[in-house]
């Protein structure tokens, strides 16, 4: 694996945050970085696509409008299935999360691009946003009975065991939500870079260059897999958001 670390092309150099514009607000570093650039690009791409494709607002949709409508219906159905009609008030949030994660993941697949979601702080912030909304909305609508979430329907004797498990399970939600996305993006991109690095190393190694097409094939296959993972992880993030929101909307009776 050391083959990947040839000079400045370390497999992890793609995750480096580079300052593009130094900025300091309220004593915090708020510099415009490559990460920020890709966040802004993602928001721009999403907004431009969804708003421009619906410009016609025709009853018989154009191709672009169809894509926008399919995305809408897809996320709307996910919310309806997991949370019910009541959950549709969270539809803009789930849609924004889904499309933001999806486009950030896919922008990371563009050569030379930066993967916003490969940084734990970003995925953790999104996961905490979801869990924060679940807790705030759950307590606001159900009050103390929201805590029943931690009291499963088991014989009372088992409760001392079950309640801590439920609490840990609840607390691990933002962790798993953020780490799953972050780790998938990180690991995938590292693997891609390593296999790509093998190609160069093998060619540089003289006679071994004859097997250099092998890692190339691997890199091509991994690229396809990574696109799939990029889409899948965005969907998983959206579905888990819906599952957690369901607790906030419908309480503990699962």
């Amino acid at each position, binding site marked *: 694996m050391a083959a990947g670390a040839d000079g400045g092309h*370390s497999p*992890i150099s793609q995750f*480096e*945050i580079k300052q593009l514009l130094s900025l300091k607000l309220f004593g915090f570093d708020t510099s415009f*970085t490559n990460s920020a650039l890709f966040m802004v690009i993602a928001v721009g791409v999403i907004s431009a696509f969804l708003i421009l494709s619906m410009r016609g607002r025709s009853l018989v949709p154009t191709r672009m409008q169809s894509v926008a409508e399919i995305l809408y*219906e897809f996320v709307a159905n996910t919310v309806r299935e997991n949370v019910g009609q009541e959950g549709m008030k969270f539809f803009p949030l789930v849609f924004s999360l889904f499309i933001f994660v999806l486009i950030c993941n896919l922008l990371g697949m563009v050569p030379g691009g930066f993967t916003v979601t490969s940084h734990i702080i970003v995925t953790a912030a999104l996961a905490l946003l979801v869990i924060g909304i679940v807790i705030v909305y759950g307590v606001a609508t159900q009050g103390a009975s929201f805590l029943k979430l931690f009291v499963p329907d088991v014989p009372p004797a088992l409760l001392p065991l079950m309640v801590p498990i439920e609490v840990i399970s609840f607390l691990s939600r933002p962790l798993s939500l953020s780490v799953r996305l972050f780790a998938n993006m990180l690991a995938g991109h590292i693997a891609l870079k390593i296999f790509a690095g093998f190609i160069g190393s093998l060619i540089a190694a003289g006679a071994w260059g004859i097997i250099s097409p092998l890692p190339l094939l691997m890199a091509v296959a991994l690229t396809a897999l990574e696109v799939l993972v990029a889409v899948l992880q965005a969907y998983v993030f959206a579905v888990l958001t819906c599952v957690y929101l369901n607790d906030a909307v419908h309480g503990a009776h699962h």
Partner: protein
Amino acid sequence: MSTLLLGVVAATTGEFIPTAAAPDAFPPFDPRTFSAQLFWLALSFGALYFLMARIALPRIGEVIEERRDRIQRDLDEAARMKMETDAALKAYEQSMADARGKAQGLAKETRDKLAAQTEAERHRVEAQLNAKLVETEKRIAETKTRALTSVDEIASSTAADVVAALTGKQVSADEVRQALAKTRAASRAG
């Protein structure tokens, strides 16, 4: 699963940090970049949420809803029109049946009237003919009687002439008549 992934991450970081070109920490775990990332994430995701919730999603939802409504409206309209068609068809059939009934009634009436007229005419003509027949028969009878009477006269005058020629005796018409009547009676009896 999360612990497994964490393990993977730890393994990869453990492997790469020593060989990394940069002397800094593994970039995704470098806390110096957190504040900038959080700031721009909040800004961009906030903007995205606002744009989605206020502009993009309502527009898409509106169009989808409008299409659903339109389809429903069209289906309702089609159902209504079908009902109207059915009703019109029924009314048409009803009026057709009425007209047929009326036509049949009219035809029957006309037929009856014509039959009655014909019958009356026939009766009248028959009566006329009968009357004519009776009159004619009467005239024939009269003529016959008259003819017979004149035959008698001719016979008696001929008989008188025959008697006069044979016997040279003049016989009166009465005598001849009596004799003829006697002969007629005799021939009838014989």
